[in-house]
């Protein structure tokens, strides 16, 4: 427990990415007819999920439950 605590700092990234609407409040560039505003946030849903899994693996992955 407490191993590699600093790795958790990675989890701050999604906060910055999605809590600052000026980054993504735009229609262009569209992707397959989907406005930027929408696909950007879906993309971050995936990235954020990947990051939490990664942090979990690094911090707790080796231990049994």
């Amino acid at each position, binding site marked *: *427990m*407490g191993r590699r605590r600093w790795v*958790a700092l990675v*989890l*701050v990234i*999604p*906060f910055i990415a*999605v*809590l*600052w*609407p*000026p980054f993504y*409040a*735009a*229609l262009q560039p569209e992707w*397959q*007819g*989907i*406005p*930027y*505003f*929408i696909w950007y*946030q*879906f993309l*971050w*849903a*995936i990235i*954020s*999920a990947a*990051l*939490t*899994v990664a*942090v*979990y*693996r690094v*911090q*707790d992955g080796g*231990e049994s*439950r």
Partner: protein
Amino acid sequence: MIHWDEIVIFVALGLFVTGVGFAAGRWRHGDLDLIEEWGLAGRRFGTIVTWFLLGGDLYTAYTFVAVPALVFGSGALGLFALPYTIIVYPLVFLIMPRLWQVARNRGYVTASDFVKDRFDSRTLALLIALTGILATMPYIALQILGIAVVIQALGINIEAALIIAFLVLAVFTYVSGLRAPALIAIVKDTMIWITVIAAIVVIPAKLGGFGAVFAAVPVAKLTLPPSLFAGYSTLALGSALALFLYPHAVTGTFASKSQHVIKRNAAFLPAYSFLLGLIALLGYMAIAAGIKPVAPYGANSVVPQLFQFAFPSWFAGFALAAIAIGALVPASIMSIAAANLFCRNIYREYIRPDVTPREEAQVAKIASLVVKVGAVGFILIPGLTQYAITLQLAGGAWILQTLPAVFLALYVPWLGGRHGERHVLARCQWFQQLPDRLSDRRRGWDEAVHRLRRVRPQHRGGGGLERDRTDGGGDAGGARAERRGLRAAAVPGQQRIGRESRASGDGLI
């Protein structure tokens, strides 16, 4: 118009789930007359069950009814639910394992237990409990409203729909406690996955693809004007911070059997966030499909109607049942959690301290009914239900007030309370000794202290730390430190408290 074919499917699925609920009462034998068993399922849930339980907490009528309704009515603003769910799990990952550990070590069942112990204040604990119960009511109201809207879509008049929704929820919870929602959540989530996948494949196809859907939506509804930036991100952040302060989220977390279960869930639950976003887009699809909201709950009715528009009637029945069960399960969990709170932190604390475990479980069951009645009260308040999401936001704003006492107190050792006092004392002494340490090396220090002391009267109203720092090195400061030391020695409990807080500190690590 009554849709009989949909009703048949809907009722059949409802009966099936209720059957699972009753069977769940016998699942993993426990004495349901004991509150730890009824309300926390004996703290035995592993990763899989906790996954469904916490997933069930979040993916509710809020997701299926309230968010798409807001997207339908207000456009991009409603998508704040997406950043909300994106950031909520990193927060859970960072905060909840710690809270679980403290709760496990000290036997807490509610957030209020923690606050009472941490701050040594019954009043604060009572306020936390009352806030939790009050904030849960509108959230349950949202679920009941969601069920009622679905039943209304089947062609049943809204008053009858509301009564049916309430009765089903009440009976269901009363009988089975937390076990029922946990097991049913598995059934429910399967149904929801099927429904959502069908919806995002069938509906856009029927409307000519996602491109066509977005092309049919007015441009103003597709992105956010700068005037809404602050609102958008604070809605997301506030909702995320609030979610795991709700009594039901705390209950769901405490019911898991280890920190690892919580961490693993926080790591893998974000897989649901994408799903939630897709469900939010149903609001746009309803615009593209030309769905007209119906009275009395307006935009909240668009998703059930969209399903009826897009699906054959047998599958519409299935999808509507998924929404209703998806509202029923969390509502049940929420009312149990609120009942736990009432029982432990109000009834036992203020009304009958010598309550027997059996009576406690009985009181909790009755309290869960009362909470649901309160929830219906919120539905009947005119204006609140224009957008069902208002109910959830109201609850969120209230429960957020408990954040300093619950989450911050977990991390900030000197934040009030008897444990806190020790830390503040230690810090003050450190500041008081600081000049002594420095004076050897810095001759100018005394002068600096004098200069500070001259402005001291203006600082009188300021924080204690500031004052002590300016006192430092002078005789007054020394005398005060001495008085403190004497007082500490004079209080016999001090030693014990010190040890106790060390013990709880160990628990935090």
